[in-house]
């Protein structure tokens, strides 16, 4: 579970590098779930200034390489304005979800928690 906003570089980087190291060690990553301000990682219109570490892009790349499931919590995302096609239509807004991420409920996180041996939360 990633709880830190993308601008919190140390936290965002730790979550990414840890995930890459876990995959390299032969672990399976059931799901990467973005909660609290972590959902801003999936906001399509946000862009780290050039040269800066860009968590959104880095997650997308890692996910493509390893088939990771990147999920934003629906409640946290709605509150903070990250909307997929369905939510956008519901609210009469344009979608703002970045490619490579999907939106689902907390239940999908708990399913992963129970399926996995370990759960790790990344803050700040």
């Amino acid at each position, binding site marked *: 579970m990633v709880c830190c906003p993308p601008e919190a570089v140390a936290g965002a980087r730790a979550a990414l590098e840890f995930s890459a190291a*876990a995959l390299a060690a*032969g*672990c*399976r*990553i*059931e799901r990467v779930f973005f*909660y*609290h301000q972590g959902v801003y990682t999936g906001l399509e219109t946000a862009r780290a200034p050039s040269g800066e570490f860009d968590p959104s892009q880095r997650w997308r790349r890692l996910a493509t390489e390893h088939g990771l499931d990147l999920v934003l*919590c629906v*409640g*946290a995302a709605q*509150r903070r304005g990250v909307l997929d096609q369905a939510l956008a239509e519901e609210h009469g807004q344009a979608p703002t979800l970045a490619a490579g991420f999907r939106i689902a*409920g*907390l*239940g999908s*996180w*708990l399913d992963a*928690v*129970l*399926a*996995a*041996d*370990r*759960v*790790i939360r990344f803050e700040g």
Partner: protein
Amino acid sequence: MSAVDPSANRAARRVMVVLRDPPHGGARARERIDLVLMALALELEVSIVFLGAGVLQLLRPDAGADSVHDHGAALGSLPLYGIHGVYAEAEALRRYRIDPDALRLPVTVLGAAELGALIHRQDRLL
């Protein structure tokens, strides 16, 4: 995350949620309770523990206080949904001078040692 061998851990049922966020400082405190509610809906054995500034969540806003974002209703509903245990750290209640009998939710007050033991008996910390 799973080690290479996905072993017999399907029985993980005892979970604990540590609540440390002060209320009204962001959506975190409320969103942590949402997580508790979801764990209850999946019929896990859920315990929660209020630590540090988290104990401020246990106070009911005064009558007449602008009800801006009070997650008290959600908190109050936890016993109805069959929460297993509601704990608060004695040291935190003491430091914030909070009377454990005047809270919006009945809590069991524990010292750090007992709380530590409880945490170490869980299957998952959420």
